């Protein structure tokens, strides 16, 4: 019963009216931006960070989490109806979802996706409930060397798994680490890279960087990309899948839940990879794989289940180790830091209301989303009529004015615009912005743990290999760093294998 008490108390936290309201706001916003092609969940969360300053930490994270998993539901709608993935994690849903819609089964596809999302999400929350305290308990013994290794591995994995050139992603990560050093050195108190500016003396805040690179950078980039005009379909009939459809998809939903859960935990994993892996797995397992791409219900149910399960389980490394597994989680990390809460293994013990409040809010959020995406789907389809031309200046203004409200200073607004330019140029030149923000968030932790460990080891870097956990993590680090080089050199000798083109073409929308 000792274990269950805080869990039940968490429900009391969620059921407070304020928290319920913010949960609802979060999932509605998530659903909306999921439906609208363009802004992804990370950009939205970045833009809305100033909103979280004036509320309790638990309320803030409940809302931001709602945006994240709400977007996974919303992204399905445009994939199925318009063949336009609203989110990167719904790209594979297009293949079978749109075919189902053409066969007059749009409602069935959406219904299956929502039910799958709900089951995947809920299964992942249950997994999170039991797994997270164990991981946190295990990580309580972690010292600076383990954190150094963990942070290094996290940054490397996020950089290598991102799309595009790995070297460029690593460069972005290095820039993020470098930006994190701006300001006063915590050990000696000396100023670094401040160029005599008083405003830089305390370092660069996380919020202007996130708002600029993710938010404004993405807005500017979208100005150019001009999304193909979406014609909103008039009506979606009968979203309730038949019993036969459900039976056909139930295996895919089950497998998608498990696969998504585990891919979400891995650093660098997350919703997009989970959905692609699930699609590949379903196609491989199917007795008639040729049905895929022609409206196979499993091809919708599996990926949609997996992306929701992954979105939920990617909270585990953040809330238990304090290591964000992907760019969106880096934003959550930043949001918690702003609130004076340091995510880490102590969180479950020291801050049970926050931990269990956030976890349990996801049950409520999933139920809300199920309600919104089955009976109310027609309303969200209508949102598609809002044109990007109108949305762009509104989001840009929200970003600028929101940035001002952080510290009531124009300096932050200027920073946002500067980082917006950097973010736009990075995307233009093929540098993923995700690793930069993630590395920036982890930069201080990484530097201080590394310097502390070196003090302990008397300056000998080999000391990291003298401790079992940090040694293992560093060995994995080296493997991850070296493996792609070996693989490409092997692949060059063999004749090229035609990979499914879809996997390379999907750009992680942040």
């Amino acid at each position, binding site marked *: 019963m000792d274990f269950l008490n805080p869990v039940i108390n968490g429900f009391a936290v969620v059921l407070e009216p304020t928290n319920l309201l913010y949960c609802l706001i979060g999932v509605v916003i998530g659903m909306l931006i999921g439906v609208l092609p363009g802004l992804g969940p990370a950009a939205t969360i970045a833009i809305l960070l100033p909103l979280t300053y004036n509320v309790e930490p638990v309320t803030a994270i409940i809302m931001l989490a709602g945006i994240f998993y709400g977007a996974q539901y919303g992204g399905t709608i445009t994939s199925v109806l318009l063949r336009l993935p609203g989110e990167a994690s719904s790209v594979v849903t297009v293949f079978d979802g749109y075919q189902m819609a053409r066969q007059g089964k749009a409602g069935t596809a959406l219904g299956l996706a929502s039910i799958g999302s709900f089951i995947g999400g809920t299964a992942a929350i249950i997994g999170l409930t039991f797994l997270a305290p164990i991981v946190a308990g295990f990580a309580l013994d972690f010292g600076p060397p383990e954190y150094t290794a963990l942070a290094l591995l996290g940054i490397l994995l996020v950089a290598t798994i991102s799309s595009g050139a790995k070297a460029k992603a690593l460069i972005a990560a*290095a820039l993020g680490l470098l930006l994190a050093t701006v300001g006063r050195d915590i050990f000696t108190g000396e100023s670094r890279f401040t160029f005599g500016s008083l405003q830089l003396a305390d370092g660069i805040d996380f919020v202007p960087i996130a708002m600029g690179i993710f938010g404004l950078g993405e807005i500017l980039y979208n100005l150019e990309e001009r999304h193909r005009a979406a014609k909103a379909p008039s009506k979606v009939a009968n979203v309730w899948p038949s019993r036969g459809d459900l039976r056909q998809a139930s295996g895919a939903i089950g497998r998608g839940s498990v696969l998504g859960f585990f891919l979400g935990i891995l650093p660098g994993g997350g919703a997009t990879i989970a959905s692609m892996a699930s699609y590949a797995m379903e196609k491989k397992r199917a007795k008639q794989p040729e049905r895929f791409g022609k409206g196979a219900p499993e091809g919708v149910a599996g990926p949609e289940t997996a992306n929701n399960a992954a979105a939920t389980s990617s909270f585990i490394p953040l809330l238990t180790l304090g290591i964000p597994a992907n760019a969106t989680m880096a934003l959550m990390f930043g949001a918690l830091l702003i609130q004076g809460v340091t995510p880490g293994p102590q969180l479950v013990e020291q801050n049970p209301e926050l931990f269990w409040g956030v976890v349990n809010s996801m049950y409520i959020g999933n139920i809300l989303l199920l309600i919104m995406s089955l009976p109310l789907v027609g309303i969200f389809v209508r949102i598609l009529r809002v044109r990007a031309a109108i949305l762009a200046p509104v989001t840009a203004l929200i970003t600028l004015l929101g940035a001002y*409200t952080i510290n009531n200073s124009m300096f932050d607004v200027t920073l946002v615009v500067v980082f917006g330019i950097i973010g736009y140029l990075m995307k233009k030149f093929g540098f993923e912005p995700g690793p930069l923000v993630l590395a920036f968030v982890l930069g201080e932790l990484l530097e201080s743990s590394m310097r502390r460990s070196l003090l302990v080891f008397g300056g000998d870097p080999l000391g990291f290999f003298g401790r079992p956990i940090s040694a293992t993590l560093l060995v994995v680090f080296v493997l991850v760093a070296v493996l792609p080089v070996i693989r490409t050199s092997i692949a060059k000798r063999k004749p090229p294998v035609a990979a499914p083109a879809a996997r390379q073409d999907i750009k992680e929308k942040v």
Partner: protein
Amino acid sequence: MEPAGGSTTAASSGGTAPRASEDGQSEPVDELTPEQLAAQWEEEKPPAAGPLANMASSLVVLGVGIGAVVLSISMGLGTPSSPQPGLWPFVISCVMAALGLFQLILGRHNRDAEKFTRMSLAPLTGLVTLAAMVALMPLIGFEIPALVLCIIWMRFLGGETWRSTLLVSAIVVAAFYGIFVLALGTSIPHLF
């Protein structure tokens, strides 16, 4: 549209993979297989930038890296057991410079950078309006710059009609005034 900047699919360091099919456009739009659909998306993407752009971005990275190395050294390095403030930035900037050099030599033919086209004038215009707004906000408040920004973005960047532009811009600015000034009482510089 540009002829997609040649058809080299050179993947020197984990870049693009060979595309499954290039004939997506000859098919009727609704009958595409996933592979053809992906190929069609690939074609609709902005054209890839040439080696020159890749070189330029690598040089910028290299420059920033070397600059940071120099600054770090001037901060003092110390030893691993008693580090000076510059040691950690020194390590990162060395990694950055090395990656920049690697990218300069091996990443020239990557196709992940996008060419600047006439479409790029839109973000440039957007940027100018944003910068103007930042400059003008402290002087004349946010309302007029925000209205101008809305009008430019909707009419000229978004191709809305004048009627809907003016109507929506006015509503948007009024809404922001209501939220940020009246409801939240923030100290955003405002004229009225």
